[in-house]
């Protein structure tokens, strides 16, 4: 009975080894010139993984092959070109033994400045209020002196 349990456990470990790899992309949003890191986990020891990034226009903008560590992990970084288009980039990963995640990971490239420019009026308002208070205080002081 003990031997049967041990064998079942061994089979479970083998099947776990065949689980799909996990892909993490950081950061989730960045601007051109920023560096995105693609990390792979849960792969098989020493296996090769292919990484492909497609831009919002479905062009291949990165293709790279990495070898996972003995613990089944690996990563690569990519500096977003300054001319990169804005939008969602899809990251496809597939490994020769552990396979591929069901859906691609993604990240967003946005412009350096927000879509709408909003002028910050708070310093101007603060100066106006201060001037008003000081003028009012001065008027009150002058009137008190006259009395």
């Amino acid at each position, binding site marked *: *009975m003990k*031997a*049967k349990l041990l*064998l*079942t456990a*061994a*089979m479970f470990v*083998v*099947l776990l*080894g*065949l689980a*799909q790899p996990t892909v993490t992309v950081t950061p989730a949003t960045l601007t051109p010139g920023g*560096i995105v890191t693609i990390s792979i986990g849960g792969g*098989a020891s*020493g*296996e*090769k993984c*292919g*990484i*492909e990034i*497609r831009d919002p226009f479905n062009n*291949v*903008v*990165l*293709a*790279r*092959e990495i070898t996972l560590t003995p613990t089944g992990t690996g990563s690569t*970084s*990519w*500096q977003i*070109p300054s001319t990169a288009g804005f939008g969602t980039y*899809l990251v*496809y*990963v*597939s*490994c*020769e*033994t552990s*396979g*591929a995640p069901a859906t*691609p990971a993604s990240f967003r490239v946005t412009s350096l400045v927000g879509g709408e420019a909003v002028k910050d009026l708070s310093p101007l308002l603060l100066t106006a209020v201060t001037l008003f208070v000081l003028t009012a205080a001065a008027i009150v002081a002058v009137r008190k002196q006259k009395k």
Partner: protein
Amino acid sequence: MKEVKKPAFILVLTLIPLLTLTQATYPLTITKVETKDYTGVPKTSFRRGEIAVIETEVSAPAAYYYAQFPLDYLQIITLWHGPSMLGLLMTRTKISAGETKSFGGGIGIRLTDPIGTYGIEVYVWNGFPSEKGAAWTPLAPARTTSITVTG
């Protein structure tokens, strides 16, 4: 003893393909990766503004048990400086048993590109991960080389 036999048999059946997968050798070989100037003279040091020509050769063995020839493959050449990918060349073609195929191209080094050591990585895959999914596989061990870019 009898109750142990069945799980042991299943374990062996599970391990055989797994071991085969991890031990599998690749059907193709990248036999040459060479850098040249645009006149065809081999060189590894380039100035900004020049074109680095990268030439490669992929060979198929005369006989290989695990693959059926002619074999379709995707070849990718990338030029890297740190995390920046400064060039990408690709081709899709077919190779027969015993054949050697050449592929190459020029990548212009812009005047604004950094100076230093650039890495060249060459891959031969059965397709893109987005097309092949879990069936994706390299068809040859990757090859790398480097060039130096001066001011």
